[in-house]
């Protein structure tokens, strides 16, 4: 209903002064903003809840994991492998988002940045100064409790630290839905592999 609305707003005004056309476009954009909020929420549910999406993700994940295995031989450490797997899973998840959300773009971008940062690690060690947590500071920062929590949420959702509050909530919505799907897919995958693998593999040191 809303979608059919906006074309009518745009097309029915035929007067062709460029200024009014610019205004019209801006107006319909702002109108679309508020429409998008409810649409994003409903769409994120539809996007991440279907079984088909989960299947696609699981198959893609398997593919990616296989490629990762081939590229880096298993050194035997589980934690590093686990981190690799988690990063791969996050990347595949972000890729399934098709770049429509901010967090997915940030996840895919950090891979590039991480590979660059490996060479520049030495530079960054001395840069940050840790803040001393004085009582006054604590008191001051406690006042806007909601804002503090929003900041924490911004840190949790990748790529959303300096994002406006309504957008942050939208991103968080989509991120939560995506994470749920990721957990479901990985659980079933792990279950599958655990069932198929002989017990000796699981108890291997």
């Amino acid at each position, binding site marked *: 209903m*809303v979608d059919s609305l906006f074309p009518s707003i745009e097309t029915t005004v035929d007067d062709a*002064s460029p200024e009014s056309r610019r205004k019209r476009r*801006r107006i319909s954009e702002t109108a679309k903003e508020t429409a998008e909020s409810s649409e994003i929420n409903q769409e994120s549910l539809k996007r991440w809840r279907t079984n088909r999406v989960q299947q696609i993700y699981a198959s893609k994940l398997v593919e990616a994991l296989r490629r990762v295995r081939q590229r880096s031989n298993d050194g035997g450490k589980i934690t590093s492998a686990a981190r690799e797997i988690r990063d791969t899973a996050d990347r595949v998840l972000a890729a399934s988002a098709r770049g429509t959300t901010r967090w997915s773009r940030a996840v895919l971008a950090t891979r590039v940045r991480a590979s660059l940062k490996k060479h520049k690690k030495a530079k960054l060690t001395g840069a940050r100064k840790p803040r001393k947590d004085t009582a006054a500071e604590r008191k001051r920062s406690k006042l806007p409790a909601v804002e503090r929590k929003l900041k924490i949420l911004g840190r949790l959702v990748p790529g959303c630290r300096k994002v406006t509050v309504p957008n942050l909530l939208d991103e968080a919505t989509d991120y939560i839905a995506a994470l749920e799907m990721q957990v479901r897919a990985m659980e079933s995958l792990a279950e599958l592999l655990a069932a198929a693998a002989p017990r000796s*593999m699981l108890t291997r040191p």
Partner: protein
Amino acid sequence: MMMMNGEATEAELFLNCADMSVLERQRAQLNYHHLPGFFSNSSTINGGEIDDGFLASAGLDLPEIYGEVHGDARISVSPGNITNESGNSKKRKFGCVDTETKVFNEKKKMMMMDREVEVEEEEEKSKITEQSTKSIMKMKNKAKKEQNSCSNDSSKVTKDSQRTDYIHVRARRGQATDSHSIAERARREKISERMKFLQDLVPGCEKITGKAGMLDEIINYVQSLQRQVEFLSMKLATVSPRLDFNIDDIFAKEVVSAPMMNLPNSVMPPHMMVNSGYPHDMVNSGYVHFNPMQQVVTSSDPLACFNNGQSATMWDSDVQNLYSSLGV
């Protein structure tokens, strides 16, 4: 006074616009017969019957837009005739001031700007169009604070301020009519709408009211989900050495003997997870999510075995055990 009526009923005019989820509820309470009041300062409003005569003449698209949304709301205004709107609409207005202004605030930003553009271009300089433009401009100024994307037609604004006696912003009863507060209220509406959606998404948040508590829950939930992913990736790391060799074989085998093979293993994971000290909410939520995935296999895709009845056999008993143990 006339304009007040008109202003208030503008709420209905913008019903078509965004924020449907919030405003649809409000719209249900609104009476379209309020609508005629919009141009009441110089118009005649027929009882509740409205036709798009005025709008057509003014070049406005409102009937069309309404047609899309409700299909029955139209405005009939005949220019040049200042008559008092029937008193009933006024009374009704006061009856639902809250809803009107809520809708009003949201809608006016959208529609007003739109109509302003259209009205501007209109050659007729009827009083209605002028005054409606003024009202549009005035309201646009309020909305601008929030959106910062509208063009600032200063000439119109000054023309507005000269005739401010006509323009009243219909705020909620007992609330400030400040442009700031209206914009602020709209912003809060947006945020609360999204928080409500998050409340539906995050399990166990129905009873929590207030942003701080909700945010706490959301943060906890996101953290628990991320921890789950970490744990699962570690688990996958233990079994993944076998990925290269026989992943296809595994899947092929699974499809054939899925129900049988998974039963012995099914007992392990819940206990394993619980014993490893992971918080119960994580374990809980993990299994809760698995429940919806009980569907018939529709394709021969090896990975389709994720969704077949094996999950039912596997998880149901486990989930029940888990729930009983956790006292959920």
